[in-house]
């Protein structure tokens, strides 16, 4: 019983801490990278304090309501998205000591990422307004297309570890990181990760061509929560990517948690750069590319990884 309690407390604190720092880091990185791409002076202090000021402003704003909105599901949507991010992060081993050993960790992660679709669709649907609804539709189309590559790539990474437990996958990269062992894995994963955190090229559900899409009718606290939850999802997928492809806590000199944080931030930074440099793709083209190229490539990737893993085990 006490073991169980300790585990819950440790996991909740570490996930909470990681998410808070991660969301803050994401916002700061977003501003810094955005300004350097725009060629503007960086103003680092402003970048560091800015998120708090912005959040305070939104907290003081009233929530708006639309005519005949589905207020219950509207309130649930950001909470669900944030909870999913936290739940996904819980199975990612942040340090060797704090690792929730779930024997089907990868499947669990895939399940939470599939649920993101529910949260985004609900957020778009509940406003009872056209642009958010179209945003919701768009995310469903987009999510059904990237979900398969996401899960397939993660399963391929599990093959050399002979385990679906994420901590085992990290341990299996002791000699060689998966980013080298499976060169196709990380690029495919990053595309899917951009999709699941609806960012940049795949930020279709809240594009400016829909005046903000799923967030068009949000204001105040609701908007703040939704943006925070979106950043939390980004943190969770980046942390998973760091654990599965970049060797998680493995690394010399520094403590494991620092390595993990650095690698996660690296992936977040990569995706934020993609957000600022690659404009939104056309949904139609993405869906076609996803089903015709990404999924077959992911299948081949699983097949090759399987052969390699078998040969390694055999020898």
């Amino acid at each position, binding site marked *: 019983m006490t073991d169980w309690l300790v585990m819950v407390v440790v996991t909740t604190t570490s996930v909470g801490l990681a998410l808070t720092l991660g969301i803050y880091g994401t916002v700061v990185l977003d501003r810094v990278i955005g300004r350097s791409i725009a060629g503007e002076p960086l103003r680092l202090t402003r970048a560091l304090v800015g998120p708090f000021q912005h959040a305070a402003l939104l907290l003081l704003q009233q929530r708006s309501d639309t005519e*005949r909105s589905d207020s219950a599901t509207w309130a649930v949507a950001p909470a669900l998205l944030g909870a999913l991010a936290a739940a996904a992060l819980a199975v990612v081993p942040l340090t060797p000591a704090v690792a929730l050993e779930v024997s089907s960790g990868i*499947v669990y992660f895939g399940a939470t990422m599939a649920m993101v679709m529910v949260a985004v669709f*609900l957020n778009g649907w509940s406003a009872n307004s056209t642009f958010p609804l179209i945003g919701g539709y768009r995310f469903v189309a987009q999510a059904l297309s990237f979900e398969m590559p996401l899960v397939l790539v993660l399963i391929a990474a599990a093959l050399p570890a002979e385990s679906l437990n994420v901590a085992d996958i990290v341990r299996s990269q002791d000699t060689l990181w998966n980013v080298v062992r499976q060169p196709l894995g990380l690029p495919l994963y990053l595309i899917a990760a951009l999709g699941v955190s609806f960012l940049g090229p795949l930020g279709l559900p809240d594009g400016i061509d829909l005046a903000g899409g799923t967030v068009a009718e949000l204001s105040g606290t609701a908007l703040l929560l939704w943006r925070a939850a979106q950043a939390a999802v980004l943190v969770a997928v980046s942390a998973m990517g760091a654990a599965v492809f970049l060797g998680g806590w493995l690394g010399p000199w520094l403590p494991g948690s620092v390595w993990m944080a650095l690698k996660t931030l690296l992936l977040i930074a990569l995706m934020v750069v993609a957000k600022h440099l690659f404009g939104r793709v056309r949904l139609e083209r993405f869906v076609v590319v996803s089903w015709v190229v990404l999924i077959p490539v992911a299948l081949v990737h699983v097949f090759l990884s399987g052969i390699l893993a078998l040969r390694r085990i055999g020898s």
Partner: protein
Amino acid sequence: MTDVLFWIMSGISVLSAWRVFRTDSMVRAAYWLMVSFAAVAVILVLLSAEFLGLVLLLMLAGEMTIMAVFMVMFMMNPAGLNPMTMVHQHRAAIAAGVLSFLGLGAVGVFGRFPAGVSFATRDVTARLGMELLNDSMLIFQTAGVTLLATMIGALAIASRRGRYGLADEDSIEPAVENSQNAGEGPPSTEKGSA
């Protein structure tokens, strides 16, 4: 602890299953069903069928959203803003539901099952994997082929026969467009040629 969680989850699953048919909004109905399923998935995890529960969750997230989108597509009143009842043979259906509950419940309560067998151990997932790709490979393969056949079959049924082009080509059927040209002609082309 497990017991408390079990009671909570079974409560949620049954209550939300009941809500599915008691809400006006179709989207809510689909997601109540999802909540019910999610609770069942948690119970399965509690029973240490971890993999099964998680696969169920993975599957139903997409499934229920598709269901919700279908509802929005086909129903005239998906948000339930014009409440109306859409049921038939209501009493008979209630009777059938209660009867099947009583019958199956009786089997559960009065049936005799081999008891005293221990819970499954921690490496369930690994053992299931070995089973799937070893002795029971035929079952696994059959399920896979069935799903493949379903995919092809579903596409064949659902897609429009004799489609006239790619999905992104035009939203107007050729026939419609022709008749239009024969009549008045879209003003844009008329202007352009003039």
